[in-house]
């Protein structure tokens, strides 16, 4: 089974962001593998290594990333977590999800035959929530996102899609398909030192974006402005003993917030 996992190179969520030139950020901060994509990689390696009745022998997990040269580090993390090899589509620009999906599709097509594509449910930098659906439309595969359980059975993927409040729907999808990993899917397997060393011997294929000949589409999404989220809160202390504090909270909820009567 040929499993492609799309991994994005994103700023560490703990890093502070400095906006430059109105639409970009200072990239001199730590970047890492998008947290949801860790679940996707972990699941792909689980499927590869599972010894089920049907057996899914000769499976290969390939991590694919559209990103700058530095994104090699993110692919290296994916390899350390168990992916067999990586593909970096090199670009120095930021692309919208419409273009990104096309680039990922072209690179995957060029590489081999797909049985399954895994992504994260959302990237934590641009928070687009859509690349998996666009990939599915381009390949004409079915798609499910926010998946918390995935099993491969008789040429199908059986998945649990988590809606809110723990409500779950189960789908049967024919393979190949595209699946977006939610947090509940698994516990990411963080690499040990030997894993990291072993990963250095794995291959990362580099493709220049221009070589994929992707046509620009008339539909696009462009960031025209980026601004820090204003924090205008002026905290006011609620004082007193427990009873007095509780009473004041009730008053605030009634009179100021007007959420109770």
């Amino acid at each position, binding site marked *: 089974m040929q499993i492609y996992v799309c991994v994005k190179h994103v700023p560490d*969520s703990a890093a502070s962001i400095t906006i430059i030139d109105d639409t970009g950020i200072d990239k001199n901060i730590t970047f890492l593998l998008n947290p949801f994509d860790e679940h996707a990689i972990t699941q792909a390696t689980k499927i590869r290594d599972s010894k089920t009745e049907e057996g899914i022998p000769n499976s290969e997990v390939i991590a694919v990333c559209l990103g700058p040269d530095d994104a090699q580090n993110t692919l290296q993390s994916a390899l350390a977590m168990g992916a067999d090899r990586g593909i970096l589509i090199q670009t120095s620009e930021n692309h*919208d999800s419409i273009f990104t999906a096309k680039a990922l599709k072209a690179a995957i097509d060029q590489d081999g035959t797909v049985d399954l594509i895994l992504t994260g449910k959302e990237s934590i930098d641009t928070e687009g929530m859509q690349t998996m659906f666009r990939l599915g439309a381009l390949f004409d595969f079915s798609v499910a996102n926010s998946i918390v359980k995935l099993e491969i059975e008789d040429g199908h993927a059986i998945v649990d899609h988590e809606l809110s409040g723990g409500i779950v729907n189960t789908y049967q999808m024919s393979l190949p398909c595209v699946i977006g990993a939610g947090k*509940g899917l698994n516990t990411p397997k963080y690499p040990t030192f030997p894993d990291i060393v072993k990963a250095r011997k794995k291959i990362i294929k580099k493709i220049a974006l221009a070589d994929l000949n992707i046509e620009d589409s008339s539909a696009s999404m462009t960031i025209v402005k980026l601004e820090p989220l204003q924090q205008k809160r002026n905290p006011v202390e609620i004082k007193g003993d427990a009873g007095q504090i509780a009473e004041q909270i009730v008053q605030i909820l009634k009179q100021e917030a007007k959420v109770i009567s």
Partner: protein
Amino acid sequence: MKNIGIIIETDIRESDAEELDKSEVKAICFGMITLARQKNCELFAFVFNAEIKDLKSELESFGITNLVNVVLAPEHQNNPAVRAKAMVNAVKDFNIHAVLGLSTPMGKDLLPRAAAQLDAPLVMDCIHVDLENFLAKTSHYSGKAIATIKTAGETLIFGIRPNAVEPVMAQASARILKFDGTDLVATKLKVIKTGKNDKSANINLAEADIIIAGGRGMQNSENFNLISKCAERLNAALGASRVAVDEGWVPYSMQVGQTGEKVSPKVYIACGISGSIQHFAGMKTSRMIIAINRDENAAIMSNCDYYAKSDVLKIIPRLTELLKNG
């Protein structure tokens, strides 16, 4: 004249034994309709297999001029791929220029499916949309920045963050229309089980007006019952920090933050939560934040509207008591 489509979500309101259960428009839809209203525009509200007569007057009072019932075959109405196909076809049939839906679990599934099929631009989790200039504002970098995004395309799609816009009424009268999608099927994706939307279960985080959330300061799962009782009295939803989830005190579906739910309630009450960057990423846009924490140096204390430096385990039971009596 431009046609704007709005995806309406509905709830079932249970009535007395004599009456039938009624559908009603979810309250979070009205802010989105308010945002969609423009000069020289027709507003098309799309509902799926709904009882139109229950919804009409409510939608009219917010300015809906066309009410389209999208009718799907009953055996396919829960299939997300079928719903998306119906939406794509309806958008074309009614010549819709821009579609607004909510960034709820339903919207997060339906809107990107439709955008992908239409090859249309899509911005999710918008806190504002300017339909005249095709601009949308949304959160980037885990809520640390707000991006203004210019969209270009034949059809534009926007997912609106619930509670981001204050609803304002505007009376109109609506034509009733129908989109027949009963012949639509999806062969590659089959629904084999649907989880029931149990009304007695936790109120949906993304939709709630009030959220009470607990963190490590709650210390164990039993103490979460304290806030759960309080939440019941307030008609509030229950939230949690990642620590509370990782400790196994509450299920993951309650997690608020960068890797959990993103919420904008009217009031967010943080109980024993320190206010990490990743937690803030999910609740920053709350209208009012009230923090209860023992440590006045916790990050949340300097980034909220009200704070009480106190033991949350003492405050919450008192609050619950007051709510019972008052």
